[in-house]
């Protein structure tokens, strides 16, 4: 756990870089978190996914899996990998300021 200054705010991150308190998140924080992950600018499609992640988290208390994102976010899985390389569910969750998807147990 560490506290870092992101977009001018003190934000608590866990050891993997996920926000520990999703209420500390805002859009400026997302932009800076994305840059740290090598995504220089967030396109409308990025935002579509990020907003979907936030709303799923608010409804269910957990972020969706990649396949759920592909089925329900309106962005196909191949494009998700272009937008958020390597692990879209994980990376989008990190940028959206919600916990790492549990991937189930």
């Amino acid at each position, binding site marked *: 756990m560490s506290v870092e200054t992101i977009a001018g705010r003190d934000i608590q991150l*866990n*050891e993997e870089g996920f926000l520990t308190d999703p209420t500390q998140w805002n859009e400026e924080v997302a932009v800076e978190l994305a840059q740290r992950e090598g995504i220089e600018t967030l396109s409308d499609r990025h935002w579509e996914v990020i907003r979907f992640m936030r709303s799923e988290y608010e409804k*269910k208390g*957990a972020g969706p*899996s*990649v*396949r*759920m994102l592909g*089925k*329900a976010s309106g962005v196909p*899985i*191949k494009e*998700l*990998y272009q937008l958020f*390389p*390597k*692990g879209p569910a994980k990376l989008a969750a990190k940028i959206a300021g919600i916990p790492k998807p*549990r*991937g*189930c*147990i």
Partner: protein
Amino acid sequence: MHRIVILGAGTGGTIAANRLRKAFTPGEALITCIDQDDRHVYQPGLLFVPFGLTHPEDIVKPRGRQLHRGIDYVMSAIESVDLRTQTVHLASGANVTYDVLVVATGAVLAPEDTEGLTGTGWMEKVFTFYTPEGAAALEAALATFDGGRVVVNVVEMPIKCPVAPLEFCFLADWYFQERGIRDKVTLTYVTPLDAAFTKPIASARLGGMLEERGIELVTEFNTGQVDGGEGRLISYDERVIDFDLAVVIPAHNGAAYVMSSQGLGDALGFIPTNERTLQSLAAANVFVLGDAASLPTSKAGSVTHFEGEVIVENVKRFLDGQALDASYDGHSNCFIETGFSKAMLIDFNYEVEPQTGHYPGRVGLPLMKESRLNHLGKLMFQWLYWHSLLPGRDIPGVTSAMPTAGKTGAALPEKEEVSS
């Protein structure tokens, strides 16, 4: 007279029906159980079929016969549930109305969700052991396999019995040694997770067990395509893994009718459910147990068994107009078959990681440790399943709430010690 309708006559539906039948007199409640066929598969047995250790016919019994007298068994596929009119529409054309609905229709395999998986090579070079047919076909293929690369691939979580693919690897290591060709076989475990398993401490232990056995581990691999003709797994980020034989655990969905039932399930057909009371979030008179539920615990028979007690209590309370019992703690345990007639046992819940020690008390089966006793436990469990668990009898010492008496590890909150 209350009308209680149970969808599914597998582990969860059978336990719920039999326990509810005991909880209500025939004059108090009419209990109906619906399933699409009469084949109740003892699913933990599927793992042993590919290695010739059991046979499909030995792990299947008629569903209807596992249900107690006084339970009306209806065999039909389900079309949809109308939550507003409290009606289940059946493929047979019949409609069944309910006061309380218990959903226990499990998870279904969705191999068609992965490009190429059911194409060229399916059931010839690409198999799954998650169905009796697939497990039997794999047995035949393994028997004539004389060397090459075997990959075991989990396409995506959640899956039923999340340790089963690891157990498959351990047993395959044993099996090829027994046949004297282990040195000609490369075994590779390919998972979308970032480690061997989901729970960090058990994951480190299981990861170590793969390494000891010379089984390669490939993590964060999200299978986008299976090319059975060329023998290649291709991930969404275009990594390629070659194979001579692939054992694939396809993605899982909820039962198809859930998607046709307005408001009942999520995009994958699993049912959002209160994790403590097991009441669905869609309607107060709908309860969910087993793999059908979208809960942060394993999709496993032990979970379903432990949920059974809570669900019966809550159906009673709901019908009596009382507050629900919020006591389900996510308790889960499983025997992990590790080969050479040994097994390991893990026990955990929503908050507490698997620990070392003994289960269910100070004198009991060793936890997190390979032992012959656990292997015998796993074998004996099949008998208990049909004769004790399904009929809804209590197994001495085995309770819904997770025990702590025999555990030696400190109570560790989730996600601690990940890095150690």
